């Protein structure tokens, strides 16, 4: 990311949001809202004094509720750019008109409380969408006790906990600060479940295995249990990693956990979380007491994927992810020319797959740029201006937003770069003014005649 930022041909706009997209391949106009950071990006040196001096704290979103951050903060140490942002919801100056400690201590004089949001318009030839995913919130699955029992964590929380720069400095610990002696990792939480998401989230098996390895490394004598339906170790080197963990003494229990409870039945279970499951390999119900439970929760579409889809005229599959042009032959492009997708916004995938798809998307854009021209459909529709009555029926129907209305001439006109020749407008036009090139009424009728005779 740092090299992206320093690249002379790349302009990185963080803390910004696309608000409007118009135009077509090679000629997009994109309106971007730059949110106020209240820190002057040109003056800030990233020294971090403001974050040290700021007296106000809030939950750190990046640590998923496990740690805190200041009111002026960078989400994590490696964040790009290394320029903090002030959160007006937790900053005393915005809330009570007091403090301004950051301003006093900033040697570069970069703090600017007067900043307002800016609208920027840029011309671009193509767009790659990589909006990623949201982590499934497991609290609706009450039987797993997330949000009810203290020591039930999501995968992302565990990930933060095990991170050396995370809220516990990489120490695996329970809420009371003690070290867990046994950990249960529950697979497919919210995935492969008709009540939540039917699809497989693809990454959970491997990150669950990675968690086991981390636990084994940090707490060598810990008992680790994996509750799985199937282990889908499909990638290069993945199966070998699974085998290695079996040798490391991780307990693999084939059976989706039914419940996590704190209701003990025996003295050994007292004070522990008990995972109830059917072990389908031995054909018995089991109760397994552990100190910590990690839920390998699903990947799901971003909460605002619907709005993003509307903004860029994308389609979504039934599971809510953005739809590619073709699931096998064109998994990078979308139905709109010049707009590409990569990563988990298209569907759950792991890092190597994401990198491959992102590289493909970048290559597609580069090939368009180096060619300097785009190929368009031969069979587009055209408007016969003599016949068009200006009724605007076609405008609403076009799935590619290719038809515009000339208010002066009161006529519809079709943008050939956008038209895909689907024929919807031609079929709907009440005055017969729109014809699909190579599929005119006469051509179709003669074909029919040919077939009949």
């Amino acid at each position, binding site marked *: 990311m740092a090299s992206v930022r320093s690249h002379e041909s790349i302009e990185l706009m963080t803390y910004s949001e696309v608000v409007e997209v118009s135009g077509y391949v090679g000629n997009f106009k994109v309106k971007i809202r730059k949110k106020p950071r209240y820190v002057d990006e040109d003056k800030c040196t990233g020294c971090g004094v403001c974050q040290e001096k700021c007296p106000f704290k809030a939950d750190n979103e990046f640590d998923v509720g496990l740690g805190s951050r200041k009111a002026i903060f960078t989400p994590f140490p490696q964040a790009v750019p290394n320029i903090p942002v002030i959160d007006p919801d937790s900053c005393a100056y915005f809330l009570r008109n007091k403090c301004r400690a950051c301003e006093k201590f900033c040697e570069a004089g970069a703090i600017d409380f007067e900043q307002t949001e800016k609208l920027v318009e840029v011309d671009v030839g193509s767009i790659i969408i990589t909006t990623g995913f949201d982590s499934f919130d497991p609290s609706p699955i*009450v*039987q797993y006790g997330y949000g009810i029992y203290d020591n039930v964590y999501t995968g992302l929380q565990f990930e933060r906990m095990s991170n050396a720069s995370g809220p516990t400095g990489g120490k695996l610990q329970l809420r009371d600060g003690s070290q867990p002696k046994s950990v249960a990792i529950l697979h497919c939480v919210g995935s492969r479940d008709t009540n939540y998401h039917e699809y497989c989230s693809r990454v959970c098996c491997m990150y669950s295995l990675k968690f086991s390895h981390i636990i084994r490394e940090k707490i060598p004598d810990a008992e680790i249990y994996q509750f799985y339906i199937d282990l889908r170790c499909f990638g290069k080197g993945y199966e070998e990693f699974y085998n290695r963990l079996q040798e490391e003494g991780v307990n693999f229990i084939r059976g989706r956990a039914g419940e996590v*409870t*704190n*209701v003990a*039945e025996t003295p050994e279970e007292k004070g522990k979380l008990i995972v109830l499951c059917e072990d389908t390999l031995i054909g018995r119900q089991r109760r397994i007491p552990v100190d910590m439970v990690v839920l390998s929760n699903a990947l799901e579409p971003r909460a605002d994927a619907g709005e993003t889809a509307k903004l860029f005229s994308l389609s979504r599959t039934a599971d809510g992810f953005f739809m590619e042009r073709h699931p096998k032959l064109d998994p990078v492009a979308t139905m709109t020319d010049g707009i590409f997708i990569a990563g988990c916004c298209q569907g759950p995938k792991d890092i190597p797959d994401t990198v491959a798809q992102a590289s493909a998307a970048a290559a597609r854009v580069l090939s368009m740029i180096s060619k300097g021209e785009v190929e368009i459909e031969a069979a587009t529709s055209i408007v016969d201006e003599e016949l068009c009555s200006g009724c605007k029926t076609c405008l609403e129907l076009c799935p590619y937003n290719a038809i515009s209305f000339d208010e002066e001439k009161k006529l519809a006109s079709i943008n050939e770069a956008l038209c895909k020749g689907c024929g919807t407008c031609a079929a709907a036009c009440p005055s017969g003014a729109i014809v699909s090139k190579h599929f005119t009424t006469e051509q179709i009728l003669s074909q029919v005649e040919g077939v009949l005779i």
Partner: protein
Amino acid sequence: MKYYTYFPGCSSSDGGAKAYGSSALAVAKALDVELVELEDWNCCGSTPYTSVDELASLCTSARNLALAEKRGLDLVTPCSSCYVILSRTNSHLKEYPELRVKVGKALAAGDLEYHGTVRVRHLLDILVNDIGLDEIASRVKRDLSGLKVAPYYGCQVVRPGPSFDHPESPQSLDRLIESLGAEATPFPLKARCCGGSLIIPEEDVALGLVNKLLDSAVGGGAECIITVCPLCQTNLDVYQGRVNKKFKTHYKIPVLFFTQLVGLAMGMGIKELGIEKCIVSAEKILAGYIER
């Protein structure tokens, strides 16, 4: 005034849970709800019967629905078992056309027919969702603040399939207790099985389940338990002594019907609500509140 067809079921009308039926009717009356007993009703089809002869059980059950359909109102029952069986008959008849034909024939023999339009409701659903907690709270006359109550839903009222509350973590009874001014205690096993009719053929299994429930309720700090099902009440109340003997425990926690607690909050008396019929006496715990 709200009107419903009322299906008391065997326990609440003339069986061990007579007090449930009478308190339900008394509370309904006080809340301006008219429960008109279904004329000529019969057994709901009952859980044990289902496992012996499902078709006969469905026919028995469907007869009640056919009778209720004539009145065109929701069919309300206070018994979780009746609620589940009648609801299941409804959904089975909708889902399986071949059953519809067979059951239809049986009904026709009694000059009846059923078109599947009756909505089966549990009394708890009516109180919480039709009458509303605010309305109930506004009718509270007796101060129950401080009374710690474990809300016991049992397994049937929220299962199977979509019901009026969450199957794993139901809340309606908790909210009802709070609207009455009492305190709902944490009760992790609130939607677990009480052993049901297993108390007869497999007493050991059922006693084990009852023991867990009592342990969980008492562990949560409850002074009494309220139930929404006659069978749950029987198992938890009547068999408490046997649990104590078998597991060497000392439970002495009264088990009331939820309607009794609602009635109590609305100012009704112990006798009127049949609370004195409980095996584990509730009078001692409630005495302080009655005098308030």
